[in-house]
């Protein structure tokens, strides 16, 4: 019945292989700019590594996890073979070709522009075209998610779309729309310049377009993790999902408020007016709603599991939880990191507070804690949970899994807490060289050294993760029981039509995008004299 096993495995293996390649680069970067290593004297190597690390970790790795997991959910939630398998392979091929096209010029030092592009810096066109191919490949996935859901609805009139599928489609729509910003920037601004057709670029407009993508992309990365919170965790620990409706509302809220907020990345940019910055700040604050709903629902679901397992009293249910189960451990560690990362995010989104941490290492610490920590640890959990169903082999290295999840958590905390701290002290980000001999920053040496230690623990944890998966691939064959997602305490009986489709919510998403982005973009386009000469990187004379 399942015809997407190989497809999902291909996505996840390519994702985890790229993750395994890019992970040591991050640690190398930490190491060579720490006091433990003399200055390498060539910043280009540093930026080359940062570009490779960022491009892989931000575009390739999470996109493939979202795609692979999305295909898995499609078949197992809808309980029928997926439509469009060949198209899905085409999408995968585009991502693979795009990744290679992007990484080769980076490796050759011809595109050390960092994954956020930073025009007027311009690298080799193949880098940008590769990124576009990755995005186009993922759009094939978006289309397939949509087609599969609508065909299922057509064949099951009046039945509620299973929640895992509903959430996955919400994530795919969010990605489809948020990727448009960077796509516009690449296709109409950067690639014509990289190909030599134009020699100037409106860097301010490019930053606005990129901010359109830059924040909601984080929620796209986050979607598989949130889907796992709702649809894997309660089942895996023997409980029930507290509320199916609450889950649907959380994903709908993400769809609406995750988009019109990206300008909080450009609070210090002069080309955007303060009114729009305020508007984006308000909507950024609203993103706490779906996250708070999720934290509440999942905690309630976990409590149900604890009480079903015999836990009593106000806190007794906590003790009754299956802490040795990697899924339980993973979600708990993820929530701790989500809590700290979310608190930091509240500081970033507030216009005046942001000024104190803008462009400092605080920001790097923040997104590593949220994405690398809270989200990626759930990617591990997803892999552990679905691996036997993909390989048809047992996956029972539970001790190793727990060690892996703990080391990832500890490593991420030891990496990012000092990182936040030096950010508060004013240490700028995106710099290749820090002169710790200078008394002005000598005091930061100890914190940076701690981060190097945290990074080393993360590399160890990454290796453990790959070892677990490889062991799963070579374990004896077994026929796992049918895959199940969590069941809600009260499965939807009379679901309002609005919570079974996306028309209204996509309308609100687009409308808010126009309200919050329309004028800044139109104004930049209409203002003459905003383009600046490009700066080509990696040129050798």
């Amino acid at each position, binding site marked *: 019945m399942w015809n997407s096993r190989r497809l999902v495995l291909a996505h996840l293996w390519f994702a985890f292989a790229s993750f395994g390649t890019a992970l040591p680069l991050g640690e190398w970067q930490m190491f060579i700019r720490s006091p433990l290593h003399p200055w390498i004297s060539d910043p280009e190597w540093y930026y080359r590594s940062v570009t490779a690390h960022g491009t892989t970790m931000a575009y390739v790795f999470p996109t493939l996890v979202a795609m692979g997991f999305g295909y898995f959910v499609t078949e197992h939630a809808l309980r029928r073979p997926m439509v469009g398998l060949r198209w899905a392979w085409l999408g995968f091929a585009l991502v693979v070709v795009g990744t290679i096209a992007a990484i080769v010029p980076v490796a050759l030092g011809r595109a050390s522009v960092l994954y956020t592009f930073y025009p007027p810096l311009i690298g080799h066109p193949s880098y940008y075209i590769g990124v576009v191919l990755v995005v186009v490949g993922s759009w094939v996935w978006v289309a397939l998610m949509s087609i599969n859901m609508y065909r299922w609805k057509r064949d099951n009139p009046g039945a509620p779309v299973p929640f895992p599928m509903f959430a996955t489609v919400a994530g795919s729509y969010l990605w489809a729309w948020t990727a448009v910003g960077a796509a516009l920037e690449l296709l109409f601004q950067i690639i014509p310049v990289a190909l030599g057709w134009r020699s100037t670029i409106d860097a301010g407009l490019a930053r606005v377009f990129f901010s359109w993508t830059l924040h909601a992309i984080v929620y796209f990365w986050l979607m598989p993790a949130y889907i796992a919170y709702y649809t894997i965790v309660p089942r895996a620990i023997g409980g029930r999902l507290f509320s199916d409706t609450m889950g649907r509302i959380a994903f709908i809220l993400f769809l609406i408020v995750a988009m019109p907020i990206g300008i909080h990345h450009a609070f210090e940019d002069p080309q955007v007016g303060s009114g729009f910055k305020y508007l984006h700040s308000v909507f950024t604050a609203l993103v706490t709603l779906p996250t708070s709903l999720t934290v509440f629902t999942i905690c309630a679901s976990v409590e149900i599991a604890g009480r079903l397992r015999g836990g009593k009293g106000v806190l007794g249910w906590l003790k009754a939880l299956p802490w040795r189960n990697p899924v339980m451990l993973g979600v708990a560690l993820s929530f701790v990191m989500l809590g700290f990362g979310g608190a930091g995010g509240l500081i970033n989104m507030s216009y005046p507070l942001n000024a104190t941490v803008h462009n400092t290492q605080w920001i790097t610490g923040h997104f590593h804690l949220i994405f690398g920590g809270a989200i990626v640890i759930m990617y591990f959990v997803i892999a552990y949970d679905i691996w036997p169903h993909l390989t048809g082999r047992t996956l029972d290295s539970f001790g190793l899994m727990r060690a892996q999840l703990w080391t990832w958590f500890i490593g991420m905390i030891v990496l990012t807490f000092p990182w936040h701290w030096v950010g508060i002290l004013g240490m700028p980000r995106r710099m290749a060289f820090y002169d710790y001999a200078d008394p002005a920053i000598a005091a930061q040496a100890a914190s940076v050294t701690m981060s190097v230690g945290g990074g080393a623990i993360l590399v160890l944890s990454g290796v453990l993760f790959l070892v677990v998966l490889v062991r799963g691939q070579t374990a004896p064959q077994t026929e796992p029981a049918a895959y199940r997602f969590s069941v809600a305490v009260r499965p939807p*009986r009379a679901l309002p039509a609005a919570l079974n489709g996306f028309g209204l919510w996509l309308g609100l998403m687009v409308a808010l995008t126009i309200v919050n982005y329309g004028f800044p973009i139109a104004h930049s386009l209409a203002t003459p004299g905003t383009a600046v000469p490009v700066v080509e990187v990696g040129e050798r004379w």
Partner: protein
Amino acid sequence: MVTRETIASFRNPWFTASVGITAAIAIVSAIVGFVWLPLQHPGERFKGVWDAICSAAGLVRNAASGTQIVRAHYLTTSVEIDPQMLRGASAESIGRGATLALRCTMCHGARGLSQADTPNLAGEYPVTIYKELVDFKTGARVSAVMAPLVADLSDADMRDLAAYYAYLPRVSVPEPAAGEPPRIVASGAPLRGIAPCGACHGEVDSKASAAWLEGQPAVYLRTQLEAFSTGARHNDIGAQMRNIARQMTATEISAASEFYAGRP
């Protein structure tokens, strides 16, 4: 079962509530962000509410009439540079440049290699040569020697000269004296805002209009850094070299000059 009501209808509470709440949040935040907050700002003097809204929207507004626009008290460069500029010179252009260059040989050598502590032009980036010629001509860069020599050069002449000198082989020092680059060249001084020299002047990266420095006479390099640091030379439009040179110590200026002079 899924209920069957029409979604896009004001009778549907999901529709009314979601559109209503979203619109209310957007409108209230817009009033706060575009009207109330700007008017609270003590430093701003708006003529009215509309003025405040335009300001908060980020409209580029012309300065009020009578406002003094600050202008530099010296001539600034008029050359606009882009990375594709002066690429792929034709053989004719190089040939014309060679003829025009006969008047430069006294100081800059027969093949662009100087014996007189003036810059070696052979193999220099064409954009750099063109920009300096234009700056000498307009007076953005001051030199009693160069000014009369460039006075009658046309724009095409200067492009041809740039093409010719860029075409000549670079200087090669028989026994390179420079060893490891000094700290100021290799790493700059981040806390003083000094980037490594190689970040613009070749080696690590080359930025349009930044000169090729290797093998240039040390005296020339030192003089120019000192001129930048006092502001006597000011044809770097973004003040990038003035800001860097001003932060450099005399020892660092010497070290950087000697290092580049000793490079092949």
